[in-house]
């Protein structure tokens, strides 16, 4: 763009700043300031029952030496990979389904928005009930269909808890993926398919040679947002497992939160900074490999 060459109109600039001031101000105070504040706090011993003290990287050293921290990192990364992959998979399938003209389209769209629009904290409680050991829906079917003669402890074992969280998360976010991909599908001209059909290709060939490549930019954007979102996961785990059993399903944000509200603010802040860095790292990786630049106007 040729911004650097144009002589800025003084009045325009004044107007522009006036128009942008509220947004900039509010973003500065309520986002940038807290983030920097968190960073600074992480270098202090900030504990409710002790006087504050600058301790440099002590909190971070403690973090690195804490096996629970690494457990959280591991859980977070594995969760993100599994969950986002599944969402992508189902999202594409559902989008392909919805792309056709179906009767009751409006109802379908409402149905698909429901998981996404209901607050996570609330749907998590429903899932808590579904996973209930004694009278939950899943165990009802497990016993009725004879999959096992013992009820499954969905939330009480590490593996069970992990899958319970993944299932609930995929349930909630697949609709979002579906809508995005659906919009992407709608930009693909039908003529391409018509031509391909005339050329004698079958459904799978059309999918892999036309649909997928043309969908790529949309998928990259969707993946980026979903991945960053998945790293931040908190609500679902807080309600469903509380990070248990034994801290095996504690994502990084919950790990940090637990310390913030048990009185060790400094340590919790340090953990929060790590989450921030992780998200930043992922964003950079995506931008580099997803050729994001061309999407930005």
């Amino acid at each position, binding site marked *: 763009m040729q*911004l650097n060459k*144009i002589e*800025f109109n003084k009045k*325009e600039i004044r*107007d*522009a700043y006036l*128009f*942008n001031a*509220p*947004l*900039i101000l*509010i*973003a500065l105070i*309520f*986002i940038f*300031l*807290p*983030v920097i*504040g*968190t960073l600074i*706090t992480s270098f202090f011993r900030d504990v409710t029952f002790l006087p504050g003290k600058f301790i440099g990287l002590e909190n971070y050293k403690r973090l690195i030496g804490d096996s629970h921290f690494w457990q959280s990192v591991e859980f977070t990364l594995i969760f993100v990979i599994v969950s986002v992959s599944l969402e992508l998979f189902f999202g594409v399938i*559902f989008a392909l*389904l919805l792309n056709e003209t*179906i009767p009751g389209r409006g109802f*379908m*769209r*409402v*149905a698909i*928005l*429901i998981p996404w*629009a*209901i*607050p*996570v*904290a*609330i749907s998590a*409680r*429903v*899932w808590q*009930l*579904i996973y*209930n050991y004694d*009278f*939950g*829906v899943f165990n009802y079917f497990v016993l009725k269909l004879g999959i096992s003669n013992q009820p499954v402890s969905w939330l009480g074992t590490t593996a069970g808890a992990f899958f319970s969280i993944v299932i609930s998360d995929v349930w909630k976010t697949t609709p979002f993926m579906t809508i*995005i991909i*659906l*919009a992407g599908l709608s930009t693909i001209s039908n003529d391409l398919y018509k031509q391909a059909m005339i050329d004698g290709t079958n*459904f799978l060939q059309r999918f892999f040679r036309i649909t997928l490549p043309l969908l790529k930019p949309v998928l990259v954007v969707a993946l980026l947002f979903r991945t960053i979102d998945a790293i*931040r996961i908190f*609500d679902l785990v*807080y309600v469903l497992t509380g990070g248990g059993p034994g801290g095996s399903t504690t994502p990084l*944000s919950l790990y940090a*939160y637990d310390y*913030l509200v048990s009185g060790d603010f400094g340590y919790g*802040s340090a953990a*929060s900074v790590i989450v921030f860095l992780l*998200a930043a790292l992922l*964003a950079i990786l995506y931008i580099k490999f997803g050729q994001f630049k061309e999407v*930005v106007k």
Partner: protein
Amino acid sequence: MRETTVIKLLKFSGIVFLLIFCLTPFVWMLLVSLSKHPDFLLSQTPLELTLNNYIQILTSSSVHLLTYLRNSIIISLTAAFFSTFLASLSAYAITRLTFPGRVVIPVVLLAVSMFPQISIVGYLFKLMTWLGWINTYYALIFPYITLGLPLALWIMLSYFSRLSKELDKAALIDGANRFQILQKIILPISLPGAFSTFMLIFIYSFNEFLFALMLTIDYKARTIPVGIALFEGLHGQIPWGYIMAGAVVATIPMVLLITFFQKYIIQGLTEGAIKG
């Protein structure tokens, strides 16, 4: 022709699967909320329908369900309104005026949308304590406005950028100032976009959990997601009927919203993701 029948069958079963996938938890929530014995899947207990759960939780004085709902609605409406408004201001400036920082602002805001909330909430708690805003509406309204800005900005940018600058030029010549132009010309045309933005930010604010968990304490400012997450039901050993009833009450606004405004919501989402 075989292929099309197979495909038709797949599509049909796919749609059925999709409906079951999306709606089962919701239906289950309703069913349990209306049951006298929430453990009715155990063979010994029968399925008996009753409205008692609802009556109990709505009339009990120590359960502030409706208060939480009111708090949520007011906070989310306010945040959505101001977020959309501020974003419109900026979007207008960015699409109509030339000034240094024109590209920086949207890009920076986009980066901001990726900040993990946990990295913000810690110090935000200190800030709010210092301001004396903990457990007041302000503690949530301002952060929610800010959280909504990136999405709002990108959607409004996409709408405004499609409107010809000629519209402005005509009005400028007539002597109108920029704000009047935004208010009287641009916004009315972009109303669908503004409305979509408003809807989306309302939904995001309504559903927000972490900030509400840490910045509010009780019914005076607590929102419904936190209220339901921490709700342990009333009476008895297995209070799930009450918890589900609470969940249904909490979900009704959202369901109504989507039913009536799904068009706008979907439009907003696709604008934000595709064009942005």
